[in-house]
């Protein structure tokens, strides 16, 4: 096997339990985003665009959808003779099976895979973030600093810093302290969960950590603090750009809305940094019929709009919307059928759901007085019967029917 300078290991096994009904049937990285993408398209496209051609994708929770989606890696140009994308599920070893017990343990269990490529560096990524990043620049930084580990960091508002893992580094970016969700943060540099390790060092610490019965086998909580305590060279790389953890219903909805805001620097149409996705074939262009008002929205192939009005919304492919329906600040995923005279506001409708005539889903926060407000969610394949109401913050489970009590 030809030696690789750096390979990427993408941690995609998380459930994403705070996405509730959206991740009931699929892992978080497979969750659809932005009209034609899945969350995992971002790290995978970033790898390709950064010149990384070998990616291990570690899966565990509900992997079917994700495995099907990744396939042979062709959409991301990761179908390679040498390297390419490899799906790495947990496996049975000897007489016992073993799940991935933590992020560090997941990599530990794949030491053999990494060694096959004999890389100098290993990039650790997660599949829950929407961002565009050139990992090769981070690697240059790692090399220039002669670092053993480099952590990508993002400047966050200091008042929000207590929600993140905070990195304290000196003026030279040399890390001297980690604080996990500190009540009184000393800095505003948050860890993005993206690490580059010099493989020789990481290998040593993964084995040490694995042999420590007290360890929770996590990069942020165990491996990095262990390296710091041992006096290894840890550096903080400063990332400047759009980055969003889409781990909650609200943040996923917000990130979709960010695509509609020209002032937010998440440009997906940059020809020099494309975000690739697996596409469905046989899709016609979208058809906009008569008496349609569509503004401040993005619409994807194969949608059919007729007599409806659509504002601040994101439509995935194959959505049909009937006459008289009004959508505002809605995220509507693939192949959803929306009938006539429906009202859908501040909502996420997951793929293949059917919204029958006259249904009302969600409401504007300023016009809702019926209790705690939140984004309304209809799970994939669910049916909302004619005239039914799905209140803000209500969630309809996948493949269920919302009908009159």
């Amino acid at each position, binding site marked *: 096997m030809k030696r690789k300078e750096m390979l990427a290991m993408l941690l995609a096994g998380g459930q994403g339990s705070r996405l509730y009904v959206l991740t009931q049937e699929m892992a978080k990285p497979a969750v659809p985003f*932005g*009209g*034609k993408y899945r969350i995992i398209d971002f790290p995978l496209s970033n790898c390709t665009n950064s010149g990384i051609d070998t990616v291990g994708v570690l899966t565990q929770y509900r992997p079917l959808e994700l495995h099907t989606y990744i396939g042979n890696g*062709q*959409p991301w140009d990761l179908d390679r003779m040498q390297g390419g994308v490899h799906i790495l599920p947990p496996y049975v070893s000897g007489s016992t099976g073993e799940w991935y017990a933590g992020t560090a343990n997941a990599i530990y269990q794949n030491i053999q895979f990494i060694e096959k490529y004999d890389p100098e560096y290993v990039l650790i990524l997660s599949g829950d973030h929407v961002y565009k990043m050139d990992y090769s620049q981070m690697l240059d930084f790692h090399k220039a600093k002669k670092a053993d580990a480099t952590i990508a960091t993002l400047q966050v508002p200091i008042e929000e810093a207590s929600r993140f893992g905070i990195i304290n580094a000196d003026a030279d970016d040399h890390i001297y302290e980690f604080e996990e969700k500190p009540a009184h943060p000393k800095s505003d540099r948050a860890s993005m969960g993206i690490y580059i390790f010099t493989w020789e060092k990481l290998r040593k610490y993964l084995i040490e950590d694995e042999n420590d019965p007290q360890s929770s086998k996590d990069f942020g909580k165990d491996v990095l603090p262990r390296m710091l305590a041992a006096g290894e060279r840890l550096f903080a790389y400063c990332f400047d750009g759009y980055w969003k953890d889409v781990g909650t219903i609200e943040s996923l909805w917000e990130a979709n809305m960010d695509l*509609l805001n020209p002032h937010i620097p998440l440009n*997906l*149409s940059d020809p020099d940094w*494309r*975000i*690739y*996705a697996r*596409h469905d*074939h*046989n*899709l*016609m*262009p*979208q*058809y*906009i*019929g*008569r*008496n*349609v*008002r*569509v*503004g*401040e*929205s*993005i*619409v*994807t*192939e194969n949608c059919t709009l007729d007599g409806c009005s*659509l504002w601040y919304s*994101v*439509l995935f492919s194959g959505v049909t919307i009937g006459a008289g329906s009004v959508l505002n600040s809605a995220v509507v995923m693939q192949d959803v059928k929306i009938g006539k005279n429906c009202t859908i506001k501040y909502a996420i409708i997951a793929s293949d759901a059917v919204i029958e005539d006259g249904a009302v889903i969600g409401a504007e926060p300023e016009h809702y007085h019926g209790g705690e407000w939140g984004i309304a969610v209809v799970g994939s394949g669910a049916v909302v019967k004619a005239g039914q109401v799905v209140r803000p913050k209500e969630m309809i489970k996948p493949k269920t029917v919302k009908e009159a009590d």
Partner: protein
Amino acid sequence: MNALGLIFCDHYSSNLPNNELTRSRTPASLPFGGRFRAIDFSLSSMVNAGMSDIGVICKENYGSLIDHLGSGEDWDLNRRNGGITLLTPLARPETKIWPIRGRLDALRAYKQFIADARQELVVLAFGGTIANIDLEAMLEEHVKNDAFVTLAYSNIPAYTGEMILHLQEDGRIENISYQREEEAGRHYFALGTYIVNRLDLLDFLDKADNNDYTNLNRDFVQRNLASCRIYGYHHQGYARIIRTIEDYFASNMDMLNPELKMELFDAEHPVYTKVKDSVPTLYDYHAIVENSLIADGCVIKGSVKNSVIFRGVVVEEGAVVEDSILMQKSTVGKNAQVCRVITDKNVVINEETEVRGASSLPFVIGKGKKV
């Protein structure tokens, strides 16, 4: 069904071989319906019939075609054996470049490719035909009829000089005539799709070499009509052959009709095309859109009516686009007015400019031009 595919990408069916749209591309690579190219239809028909060994005969102007086809992976034709084979002009030491004077001549030129194939049958198709032909059904009929050749036809108007089929009740072709100027109306018009047994074709190609036959319809079909079983296959769905600018305009506009669109893009027989990784289309606050097909990757800030808009088109604020076809990455500047116009790829219509085509003939703006 086990068949070899051969797709012609020539200009023989075109009445306007040198119009703005086909000056720099073959009729097979004409953009169609917002995101397709004409050849997608014959390629997809073949792939949907389980064919995986397809030769594409390109004589000239095939740069855009090669770019479109790539490795064939978008049609699932990047195979270890077979897949897409581009049959580009060939030169032999003794003949220099084979001139290719007709479709039969092209088959003579690539006889070795046909001889090397292992399939029993050969499907010949014209890459400029816009039709989603069920080749599986057609192959079955061919075998059932024990036919020498089967030709697909549709009940559409023919132009002067074009071949018309006269059929017996059982579908056998009795006679062939050529459309005369005074005859109007619909006819059984051959769509340029033929099925023939491979060994029969090879035999005939030897004969064609000896007699220097070059014309597929006249020499292969018509000469064998009396002595061989030649059948028609009635393709029921949408079918057009783009021969003129009017044809091109009308067939694109047909896709605004939901019924015709359904006929062509039948869910059971998907039409595949090159994947471009465009972003979804963005509609600005002021966008006004009516009865239009719009591909991905566009930014619509102005008004678009009764139009077909390809990928990556930008319509700026205050611009009005009506009854027009805007190909990939065209830009319509602020307050520009565009009516009955076809813009080729990368056309720029400047701010405050008005471009209007005649009601009989749409105005064509060539590739990359600025107006």
